[in-house]
């Protein structure tokens, strides 16, 4: 399994990436961009606890690997400490950074979706099992763009771990129409934005059966 390679373009900050996904109808978790720890606490108070805090910036691509995501922050002190630590962890290479505060969404299932431009077959949309084990599991399927709802549904159907899309641990089955809509949205994005080199939506958490993007990384031509 290969790790993500050197970038061919530049990455958008997480909130800018999420905004682009939302333009194409993909459900994204709401998030507030905060310049300092006080603003982060204010945002967390407004959202309600627990929350997630992440460091964002155009040049920050793989937050988890760098420890730039703090989960399950339960009170203002935890948010303040996390925001302070995240800002301190930034390096000059990260450019302009901020702290993103978002609700802590919970779901037993994490999916992954994305867009890639294949050198042979052009833009393709991906769907698969996500989270930190995505690449080890490699239970993913691709569909060339343009795609229709049947193409998307058949890609979802082709995943090996179908049981994970059914009812799991007290959670309802994944809403396949909603998941299909995510793939169609990514396909539309790939068609409308030829400058987009790749999109990673990982994880795409299933909350009460419906997929919600809680992290996104869009890479565009430099």
């Amino acid at each position, binding site marked *: *399994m*290969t*790790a*993500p*390679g*050197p*970038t*061919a*373009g530049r*990455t958008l900050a997480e909130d800018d990436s999420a905004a682009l996904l939302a333009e194409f109808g993909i459900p994204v978790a709401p998030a507030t961009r905060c310049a300092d720890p006080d603003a982060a606490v204010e945002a967390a108070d407004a959202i309600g606890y627990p929350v997630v805090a992440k460091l964002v910036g155009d040049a920050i*691509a*793989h937050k988890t690997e760098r420890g730039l995501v703090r989960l399950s922050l339960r009170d203002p002190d935890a948010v303040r400490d996390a925001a302070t630590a995240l800002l301190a962890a930034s390096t000059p290479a990260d450019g302009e950074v901020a702290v993103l505060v978002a609700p802590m969404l919970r779901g037993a299932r994490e999916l*992954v*979706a*994305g*867009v*890639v*431009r*294949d*050198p*042979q*077959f*052009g833009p*393709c949309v*991906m769907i*698969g099992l996500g989270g930190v084990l*995505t*690449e080890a599991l*490699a239970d*993913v*399927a*691709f*569909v*060339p763009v343009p*795609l229709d*709802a*049947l*193409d998307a*549904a*058949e*890609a979802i*159907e*082709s995943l090996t771990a179908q049981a994970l899309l059914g009812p799991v641990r007290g959670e309802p089955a994944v809403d*396949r129409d909603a998941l299909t809509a995510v793939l169609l949205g990514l396909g539309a994005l790939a068609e409308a934005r030829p400058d987009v*080199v*790749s*999109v*990673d939506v*990982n994880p795409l958490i299933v909350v009460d059966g419906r997929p919600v993007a809680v992290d996104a*990384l869009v*890479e565009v031509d430099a």
Partner: protein
Amino acid sequence: MSRDLSPLFAPRGVVVVGASSHPGKFGFVALHNLRAAGFAGPVLATNRDGGELLGAPVYPSIDDLPADVDLDLAFVCTPAAANPDVLRACARRGIRAAFIASAGYGEAGEEGRRVQDELVALADELGIVLAGPNGQGVVSTPVGLCAQIVAPYPPRGSIGIASQSGNFVSSFMNLAVATGVGISRAVSAGNAAAVGIADYLEWFADDPETRVGLAYVEGLVDGRDFARRLRAVTERMPVVLVKGGATAGGQRAAASHTGALASDDRVFDGVCRQAGAVRAGSIEEAFEAAATFATQPAPPGGRVAILTTAGGWGVVTADAVHRSSLTLLPLPDDLRAAIDEKLPPRWSRNNPIDFAGAETRDTIPEVLDLVTAHPDVDAVVMLGLGIQSNQARLMREGRYFPDHGLERIVGYHERQDDRFARAAAEASDRTGKPVLIATELAVADPDNAGPAAVRDTGRVCYPSADRAVRALAQLWDDARHRRRRAGGPDAA
């Protein structure tokens, strides 16, 4: 509108250019195979010596060929350097297609590629269909054409083969010989310089002799164009693909996990799924899938009934069904009651329908008919064929034959297995549902009366239940893909 390849696959006459009198040379083998397979039209040859070879008149050049013979195809064995002049002479003579067996083109480095590009440009200018170069030949059974430098000449059938490896054309045709499921057209695309796999598949889709396309691809030049054309072809005919080099790592410069996961293999899977083409993992699997499309009707649904004369076979076959896109039909009450009329109570009374040795002379065909005709059954897998004939063989070859009543019982068992195989084909024909027979005797003892009769009905005797179930699932995936896109009941 597909490119007109009829001069290649249905020529009125053929000339072997560069025929040789040395039986080890391609120029001899090609002429031999053309003559030996009994091509109906005239077969002429050219070389510097003239005279006659294998009964074919030999002329010094294409320009010397008699004017009153209709020739559409030149099979070219001359060195690459001679071939531009050969093409020009073909055009003067009204020959509309050239199969270039000669090597020394795109496969042979930069200079070869340049020579190949020039040949393609010349053929375009002359309006000649250029197949190859560096190909092994073309086969077309409806006209008895075996214009190739390899064996075998396959039985006639409805599978159309196009391959970027000539050896795999031979492999597919060997499997056609072994199973008895025949070929309509087969072509080794060679370097596919002018006519590519998609061109061949498009022509097959329009060809009334071809029911299913079977292709081996590697190194596609324009993947998106191929995917688009493949999709249009599969709307008209099922296509089975094997791809070489599919496990090579992609070189995608992307910062994303999506990019890292987008191997050639997975992307090609997606291309085939979207296009509705069956992607096979091996040459044998690909042939078996194509042979199944060629010989079984499309299932009306994915619910399978398993018929077996022994428990273990049914169990593993049910497991294979569970692992596939098919479903094991819970035995309907009315069908159970109907089978109860035919069998004593020790049968399984469930699906798999296990006779548990309770069958008598007519039970198997009768139950097979009941099961196949039931409206909830979409397809049947039948196991255990040939088991009695296997015992019969041991008796026939043993020291007590033909005494002790052995001759009579051996004949009975062989007639019964023959009858069961035919009953399966008839039930399938009558109901329009697939009925697949699986037994390792298909390879362990192809002459066993069971597998022999399956071949005689024109169908595949699958060497294992796993392989039968896999082929049936491919049949169902294809049928479901079509049905959904037609807005049918399985529309997702």
